[in-house]
């Protein structure tokens, strides 16, 4: 679709009589739409529509998909429950409860970490706010569906293993 040739802004030009009775313009409009129709019938392949479940659009690496919590080497979350993300979150969708970690070198860890995906607006500010690089929206998952509201509230275990390779 090209916008070339269109005026950059409304010109405020007076309509001619022919234009003002509208009929000719309607016919011209019909011509425009039918030309699209005809063109597309004979060039189905050229249409930009993707056959979604079979074909998938390749998104940029920066695409913000479903969140995931980064793990330390031992599989525990990197998150230290500082609640920067929940503080910063414009949708107020992150709920964290901190607790004492048995390992004194970690000190604080999230006893629970929940994200309400229905509230989330995928703005990525939680990533920005995180001082530990613990939360990322890098799974690339955009197919988020469930048959129950409660299932959209995902917990720490889910987020820890929420990978784009489909292993949850």
């Amino acid at each position, binding site marked *: 679709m090209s916008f070339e040739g269109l005026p950059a802004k409304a010109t405020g030009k007076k309509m001619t009589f022919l234009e003002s009775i509208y009929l000719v313009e309607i016919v011209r409009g019909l011509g425009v*739409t039918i030309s699209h129709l005809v063109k597309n*019938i004979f060039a189905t392949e050229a249409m930009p*529509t993707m056959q979604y479940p079979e074909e998938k659009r390749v998104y940029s690496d920066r695409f913000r998909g479903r969140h995931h919590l980064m793990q330390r080497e031992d599989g525990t979350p990197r998150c230290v429950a500082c609640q920067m993300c929940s503080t910063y979150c414009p949708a107020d969708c992150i709920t964290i409860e901190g607790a004492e970690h048995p390992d004194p070198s970690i000190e604080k860890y999230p006893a629970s970490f929940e994200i309400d995906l229905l509230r989330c607006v995928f703005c990525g500010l939680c990533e920005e706010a995180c001082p530990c690089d613990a939360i990322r929206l890098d799974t690339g998952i955009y197919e988020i569906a469930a048959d129950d509201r409660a299932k959209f509230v995902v917990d720490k275990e889910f987020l820890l293993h929420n990978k784009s390779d489909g292993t949850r």
Partner: protein
Amino acid sequence: MPIVLESLAKIVFMFLLILGMVPVLIWAERKGAAFIQDRTGPNRAAIGGVRLAGLVHPIADVLKLVFKEDVQPDARHKAMYNMAPWAAMTIAVSSYAVIPFGDFITIAGRKIPLVVADLQVGALYVLAVASLGTYGVVMGGWAANNKFTFLGGIRATAQMISYEISMGLALMGLMLVFASLRITDIVAGQGDLIFGFLPKWGVVVQPLGFVLFITAVFAETNRNPFDLPEGESEIVAGFHLEYSSLKFALFFMAEYCHMVVGAALISAFYFGGYQIPWLPRPVLEAHAGGLLTGKLIAIIIVSGIFAVLFLRRAQKERNKFGDARDREPRIGAGLWLMVAAGAAGALLLKPWHIGPQGAEMVASIAQIFAFVGKVVFFAWLFIWVRWTLPRFRYDQLMHLGWKVMLPLGLANLVVTAVVMALV
């Protein structure tokens, strides 16, 4: 007794025609909209993995709507609420009674006029039933007891009143020209030629009347650009907001029935109905054999071309998807080949040697096809316009109805009357 059978047969035919067109129109609406907007449109519903370009969708829709839960508002007016969709549907279909879909057909020596009820005041009947059409909408809107549905009903009423007048004025011009209120007369009158070459169609003798009429019909059918009763952007879904399941389906179907009726009225009043231009009935009957042969040959050629195209595509895309859809081009090719084979089989019956009785039958069927073809075109026009024009604002709608179309309709009537008086 035979006359009852006759009428029943005609009613059934009309019903099948209209109801048969509804799913096709829905399909055309969706696919047409999609192609106009550079999309592919619905193509998911499939039978055994074969998708048939979305043709299965209307079936799936019907199944879905039939089996869906019928959610009803607590505060509805029960009787009205239940009646409304049926009213809409019934009224939409009933105006068809007076529209001739052919001249006549002779079966078993009986010359049967191809119209359900050849009323003397057919045109008035049309106007009357059309204005009843709004009742379904108003009832539904009011009975659901919801602000949005109510607004939709109100809008429908106001809109109907505004455009009914223009519609009537436009038709009055036509009645003056053909000097009859009987629709069969009007259609028959359009078989003539004026100046020896121009078909005496309503659109030719009443061009302004045609414009007013078609605009009014669009408005009466609540189709874009006049679909304010269901203006999504302001009142969610308007009058049918509170309807679901089969009742919603009825409203939905009523809209398409309205479209078919509207298309039939336009064809009957302004495009010669079943008349084929330059081929009046006697000429048709005289050359029936040749015409039929030519048609069959044309069908063989065209369907052959399509079959070849599909075969090539089948060759090319043998394993494009890796599932049942790879069979679709082959099925298409098979269908076209069957059509070609059927036509070729018909040729074997030596259609150029049909007798006078056969010729008359062919002529009748040809005229029915002509009528159906016109109806299909105007039904498509409804769809086409919908995906071309934006919706009016309500004040624009009223302005157009009262301050443009009404004066123009009056002027048209006066001018027509004067011309008729002078001629």
